C-alpha cells in the first residue's frame, strides 16, 4: 500500500529523462547504437519496484515514442509490450540474479527486441540496419548497472525523506 507513494518523483523524473535521451542528436557514427532508454527504464521499474507492470502502460508509452520519433505507429508499442511481458514473466528469477547476470538478461531482452523491430522494418521495406544497430543491446547492457545504481540511490533517498 504504502509502497505506491514512494518513488513517484523518481519514477516521473526517469520517464521524463527518457525523452531527451531518445531524441537528442548523436554523432552519425554512433547514432544507430543509441541504447533503448525507454526499455531500460521500463525493465528497471518492473523488476525493482514492481511499477509499470501493466502491458497497457508499456503500450501507451510505446505509442508516445512512436509519435515522437516519427516511426510507424505501433512499432515501439509492440516492442515495449513484448519486453514488459517477458520481464514480468521472468521477474522472480531475474530479481535474484547477481548484477552481472542481470545485465546479461537485459541484453538478451534488448536483443530479442531488436529482432522484433527488424521484423517491422523488414515488412515496411526499409533499408537493412547497419551493424551499429546491433550494438545497441550491448551498450544497454553496459549501461544497466549504472542506471540500476542511480535509480536505486534516488529511490532510497526519496524513501528516507518520505512521510
Amino acid at each position, binding site marked *: 500500500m504504502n509502497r505506491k507513494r514512494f518513488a513517484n518523483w523518481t519514477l516521473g523524473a526517469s520517464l521524463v529523462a527518457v525523452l531527451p535521451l531518445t531524441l537528442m*542528436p548523436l554523432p552519425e557514427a554512433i547514432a544507430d547504437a543509441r541504447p533503448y532508454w525507454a526499455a531500460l527504464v521500463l525493465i528497471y521499474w518492473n523488476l525493482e519496484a514492481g511499477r509499470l507492470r501493466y*502491458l497497457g502502460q508499456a503500450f501507451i508509452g510505446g505509442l508516445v515514442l512512436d509519435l515522437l520519433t516519427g*516511426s510507424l505507429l*505501433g512499432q515501439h*508499442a509492440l516492442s515495449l509490450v513484448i519486453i514488459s511481458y517477458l520481464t*514480468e*514473466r521472468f521477474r*522472480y528469477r531475474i530479481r535474484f540474479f547477481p548484477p552481472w547476470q542481470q545485465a546479461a538478461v537485459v541484453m538478451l531482452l534488448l536483443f530479442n527486441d531488436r529482432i522484433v523491430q527488424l521484423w517491422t522494418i523488414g515488412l515496411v521495406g526499409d*533499408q537493412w540496419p547497419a551493424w551499429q544497430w546491433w550494438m545497441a543491446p550491448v551498450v544497454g547492457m553496459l549501461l544497466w548497472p549504472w542506471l540500476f545504481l542511480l535509480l536505486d540511490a534516488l529511490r532510497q533517498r526519496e524513501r528516507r525523506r518520505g512521510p
Partner: protein
Amino acid sequence: MTPGGGSWPATIDGEAAARIARLMFYGLLSIVLMTLDYRGGYVDSLRGLAWRALEPVVLAVEAPFGLGQRLGEEMRARHELMDRIAGLERHLRETQAEVALLEELRDDNRELRALLEASQRVAPRFETAELMNIDLNPWSHRVLINRGRRDGLTAGQPVMDSHGVMGQVDEVAFSTAQVILISDPDHALPVRVQRTGLRTVAYGSGRINQLRLTDLPMNVDLQPGDVLVTSGLGGAFPPGLPVAEVESLSRPVGEAFARAEVQPLARLDRARHVLVVDSPEPDSSPASSDAADSGNAEENSDEAGDEPNGSVEEPAAEATP
C-alpha cells in the same frame, strides 16, 4: 525467446493465462495500428492531432541543443568568420552574375511564351527553414524543420535543399513541421528525364541515398549520369526542380519493365538548411487578360492569394518593357 520453464507458482496459472491473453491483445492492436498506418494512412488524422499535442516536448528537447549550437557559433574565432564571410560574398557575386544572365533568359522565355499564348510559369517563392536538432527513428525517412503553421506552411509543400528536391511537408504543427523525404518507401514523385523528356515516376526505396524507377519501357533511352527533374505533373511540385541522377539501369530478363536506380541530388542525410517552396500550382490558371483587374482584389487576401498573386505579377512586369 520462448518461456523456458515454470517460474510461476502453479496457483496463479489463471493469471498467467490472462497475461498471455493481454499480450496477444496488445500485440494484435499494435500490428493493426502498424498496418493501418502503413497501408493507406488511415490513422493520419489521429497522428496529426497527437503530433500537435506532443510538439512542446520536441521543442523542449531541442532547446538546449539549439542553444549549444548557437554558443558554439559565437565562440568561433573572428578570423574564421571573416574568412567565411569573404567566401560567401564571393559566392554571392558569382551567383548574382549568373542570375543576371538568367534574368535575360527569363525575359526571352516570357516573350516566347506570350507569343505561343502558353501558360505562364509562376516563379516559385521560397521560405528558408532549418532542420531541428532531433534524431528521429533512423528508418522513418522524416525530418523536422523549424517552420510551421505560424509561418504559413501547409501539408504537401515541396521541400528542397540547394542541390535538389528533398521531400514534402507532411504534418504541420504550430512552429514545427515534419517533412517526408523522397526516399520514403511510401513516396512517389513524378519526374522527367532532362535529356530525353521521358516522363516517369521515382519511388522511394527505403534507402536514404537511392530512389527507384520501376516502370520504364524495356527500350528506354537512359544512361547513367542522366539528370531527372520534377515534371510538374500532379501539381504538388513545380516543374524543373532537379531531383536525382541515374546510377544504373537494368533490364531484368522476363520482366515487363526495365528498372533504374537513381541517386537523389539533395543531400537527404546531411542537409541542415532547407527551402520550403511556396507551391504555385503551375497548371491551374493560365495567365489571362482579366488577371489585371482581379489582381487588386486578390492582393488583400493573404491565404488564398498566393497563386493568383504569383501569376498577376508576371503580366504586370510584362507590360513595362
